[in-house]
């Protein structure tokens, strides 16, 4: 992928979302959960950017804050070159036609009392000045796009299987021809065989409608399968981001290395050198100082406890937040100069 010549559709810079922790008799704020704590990345038009990370690292919060379904505490989000964190409610509503989200839980995200027709038709009603007939046709068309039938329109969510419900969620997201879809664990609740069906469908739709996805998941093989580039989050920040193959073949951040080594491979012939991390994931209410991974990092150094590493490129398109590479930073740029000179 040639990101340089492509223009970013979405630019996230220094995004933060802190949730207050209420306590005491008077319900005063006694602390903060730093769910997203300085997240930065770009998403280019037509690409699928995968975001992985363990439970509680802030993936869903980031997804919602980008769409302003919850208000970010700090940071910038630009969509098609427009800063959206300062837009008013009316303008945001306009933007939600172009930016959609699919949620993790196909059971909880659909209103059980509404028919499929109503569920899919709702975004059309909110945004469009379409006639009843046009809406009916569009709903029928959308159902067919996601592999369901027109006669499903009059049914209720509980009459569908998990995979079918996720298709309904996808049809709803597609209703207004969005440009960007943030997919928050769209297949995590599904069985493997159903998961494959939904993943294939999402890929087909991307090609057909030239969609851009941010694909959030905790399953590294799923993310690898579907993404062009992949970012790894730890405690509210991006710690590594690069092209898919580069990330899986040549992970740089110690956390990414441990994460990849911990995924059990269904091929019994693959012998893995497993990096077993010690301890639990720290709480985002009380994140460790310096590099937040230092409490579990097998190669932590003194500096790691004190200084937060910046998220910097160590090669073209390969960003890492780790002190191991910050020293080398200098050398790498020198090397490049030497190479340039030799040419």
């Amino acid at each position, binding site marked *: 992928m040639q990101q340089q010549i492509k223009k970013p559709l979405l630019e996230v810079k220094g995004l933060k979302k802190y949730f207050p922790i209420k306590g005491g008799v008077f319900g005063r704020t006694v602390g903060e959960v730093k769910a997203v704590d300085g997240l930065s990345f770009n998403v280019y038009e037509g690409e699928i950017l995968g975001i992985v990370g*363990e*439970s509680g690292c802030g993936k869903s919060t980031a997804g919602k804050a980008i769409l302003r379904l919850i208000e970010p505490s700090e940071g910038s989000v630009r969509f098609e070159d427009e800063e959206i964190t300062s837009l008013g409610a009316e303008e945001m509503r306009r933007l939600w036609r172009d930016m959609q989200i699919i949620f993790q839980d196909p059971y909880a995200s659909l209103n059980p009392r509404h028919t499929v027709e109503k569920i899919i038709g709702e975004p059309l009603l909110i945004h469009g000045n379409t006639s009843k007939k046009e809406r009916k046709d569009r709903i029928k068309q959308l159902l067919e796009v996601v592999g369901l039938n027109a006669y499903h329109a009059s049914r209720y969510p509980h009459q569908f*299987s998990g*995979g*079918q419900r996720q298709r309904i969620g996808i049809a709803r997201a597609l209703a207004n021809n969005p440009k960007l879809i943030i997919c928050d664990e769209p297949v995590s609740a599904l*069985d*493997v*065989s*159903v*998961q*494959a*069906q939904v*993943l*294939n469908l999402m*890929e087909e739709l991307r090609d057909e409608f030239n969609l851009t996805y941010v694909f959030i998941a*905790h*399953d*590294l*093989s*799923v993310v*690898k*399968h*579907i993404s062009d580039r992949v970012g790894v989050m730890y405690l509210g920040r991006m710690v590594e981001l690069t092209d898919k193959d580069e990330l*899986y073949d040549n992970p740089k951040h110690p956390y990414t290395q*441990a*994460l*990849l*080594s*911990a*995924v*059990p*491979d*269904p*091929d*019994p*012939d*693959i012998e893995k050198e*497993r990096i*077993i*991390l*010690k*301890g*639990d*994931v720290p709480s985002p209410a009380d994140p460790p100082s310096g590099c937040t991974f230092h409490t*579990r990092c097998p190669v932590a150094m003194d500096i790691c406890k004190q200084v937060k590493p910046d998220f910097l490129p160590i090669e073209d398109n390969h960003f890492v937040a780790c002190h191991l590479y910050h020293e080398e930073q200098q050398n790498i740029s020198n090397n490049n100069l030497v190479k340039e000179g030799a040419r």
Partner: protein
Amino acid sequence: MSEIVLEIKDLSTHFFTDRGEVPAIEQVSIRVHKGEVVGIVGESGCGKSVTSLSIMQLVPSPPGKIVSGEINFKGEDLAPASEKRMKKIRGNEISMIFQEPMTSLNPLFTIGNQMIEALRIHQKVSKKEAREKSIEMLKLVGIPRAESIIDEYPHQLSGGMRQRVMIAMSMSCNPELLIADEPTTALDVTIQAQILELMRKLNKEKDTAILLITHDLGVVADICDRVIVMYSGQVVEEGTKREVLKDPKHPYSKGLIRSIPKLHGREEKLYSIPGTVPKPKMDRIGCRFAPRCEFAFERCFKENPGLYPTGDGRSSRCFLYDKSEGDKKINAATNKEATIGG
């Protein structure tokens, strides 16, 4: 092979609900040897949990009931055993780790209370000894600050720590058989790796047999010796993990394995099995997998397949392997697979 610890024979457990009788598992047969790790895999609702709960006689009843079959544990049939007898066995000779760790720890008691009580039910030890042993077990499973954690309540622990407490509890009586129902499904991969490492260690050091229920074939490849594939309440295939994962025989196992995205290598489009897993119903005729099976032929819709030997000591619940069908069918299946999978 070493001695058999558990031998389930033709076990059927049904639920008698308002909507009628639901055959959750049908004629399930499983064998576990001493020191062996056996995996049960299959998709949601295929009967994995009901199988494990049946062994422990913990199926909620009503509506559930073991309607037939034997559960031989070291030569004793547990299917007709009394509740008194089962109380002796549970948590002592057979331990179980449940799918949700939160529901199996009592939120009102400290970790220590629960561990000490569990120990003292089965062993003649003083409170002090039981406490020491509990701390030792917590340390063994990698709980930091075990001396203070023992006096904390379950909600003060992270999911991974709770699951480790469950494992510590289940191992503290040196059971001969540990049944673990999706012990790592709710956990992160880095924590999962810690827990699997721990189970492997206990299996190796104490020779404990483990029956591991999971839907993650990666976990199977990681720690199991043998694997059983279930589909819609029935065992459809069984073999060593290498046999089943590398050379699955049953069309469902083949499809399941092919639909997993790979961490290594590249693939363009994922294979997907059409359709969805059916809900179990009474008096079903024909192979449970027939509506989704690409190899299905007439007979598959008219008769129930038995377990047929596949020629290498393994068996598969599929007519393709029935000798009376001749070799034509098997060849067709294997050839077809070679063109798709190769």
